[in-house]
């Protein structure tokens, strides 16, 4: 479903990677590994279409993501280093707006449930600036519960999370893979992911 053909990315004069080929089918997790600065985030951003590669292309269901544009973004969920939530809005508001922008508005019941499941019961209507770093991360990750995207691109999703939240996120990923979804992620933590096929990619050898 997700294909990468001869991808090459540069940052300034430095070549991060070149001639990268990948094919990911449904239910597969791709674990991207590498040292700091080896181009993991750049690769992930390229897969999302945020960064234009210097050569090669990314295809989704056989078509280039450049031509698919909005149809591709409908099936994509990206969770980057930044949480992408407004600190002056509550968790509820943040999630409702995100769902609306993603094109599938959800009822407030679904948002309450998602926040409860991610472990933020009782914090739903506090401005997120009052929450701890880990709790903010949880708000951002609650989008995974609400979203119907097929492809999840997660950049260091486990940062700032406690043991309980890590387990929860692992569960979410496993569920997503079992449902035929795709996950591309980077993490420095050794996190066992039991279900689905796990592919590994090492950058900057």
């Amino acid at each position, binding site marked *: 479903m997700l294909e990468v053909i001869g991808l090459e990315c540069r940052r300034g004069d430095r070549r991060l990677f070149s001639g990268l080929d990948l094919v990911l089918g449904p239910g597969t997790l791709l674990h991207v590994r590498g040292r700091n600065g080896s181009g993991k985030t750049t690769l992930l951003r390229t897969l999302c*279409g945020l960064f234009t590669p210097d050569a090669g292309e990314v295809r989704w269901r056989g078509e280039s993501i450049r031509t698919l544009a909005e149809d591709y973004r409908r099936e994509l969920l990206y969770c980057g280093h930044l949480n992408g939530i407004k600190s002056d809005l509550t968790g509820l508001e943040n999630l409702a707006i995100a769902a609306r922008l993603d*094109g599938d508005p959800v009822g407030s019941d679904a948002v309450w449930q998602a926040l409860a499941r991610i472990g933020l019961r009782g914090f739903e209507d506090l401005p997120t600036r009052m929450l701890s770093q880990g709790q903010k991360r949880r708000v951002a990750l609650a989008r995974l519960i609400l979203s119907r995207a097929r492809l999840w691109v997660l950049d260091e999703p486990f940062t700032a999370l406690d043991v309980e939240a890590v387990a929860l996120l692992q569960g979410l990923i496993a569920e997503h893979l079992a449902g035929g979804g795709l996950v591309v992620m980077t993490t420095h933590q050794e996190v066992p992911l039991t279900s689905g096929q796990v592919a590994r990619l090492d950058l900057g050898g």
Partner: protein
Amino acid sequence: MWAVFWCILKRDLLLALRRRTEVLTTLFFFVIVVSLFPLGVGTERQVLQILGPGVVWVAALLASMLALERLFAADYEDGTLEQMLLTPQPLSLLVLAKVGAHWLLTGLPLVLIAPLVGMQYHLSEAQIGIMMLALLLGTPILSLIGAIGAALTLGLRGGGILLSLLILPLYIPVLVYGAGAVEVSRIALTDTEPYLMLLSAFLLAALTLAPLASAAALKISLE
């Protein structure tokens, strides 16, 4: 599609409501700059009547520059802008909604306070009416053109100064015709029509082109 437009508009208004200072700064800046001139040049009626239109418009340009830098910067810093780029919505529509909210918060207050400012310069009622109309047509153009500059300078160090250098020259037509309309209305009200028509034409052109240009600029800035 409009649901998304309203969603962003409401979001930005709600955010401004929770951070009121940013809105009030623009308005107070405008009022203070405009009020400084009578103190500086004296209160002679005729001098003020001649200076009035130009001063009000220059102050409006500067005031609208003030909040422009924050138009996309806040969303850029917390990653929400990145997420907007990844939604299956046309980015130019989201930009238009953001600019709309920006105008409601920084442009519209200037229009509403104009009568008060006009009185300081001994402008007649009719002139004040024309000034409000001209500001109503002109301030959205300022926000729309400004959005292109804000998008281009996003994330640059010292972007604020660069933004002013980039955008202020583009504001000149609005300044010329906006101040012109008020100036001409001193002699004959009917003569203001071509000025207002030209401002309307600028507004329509800016409404169609600026969101597209800003969206393209945002994509480049976020790479």
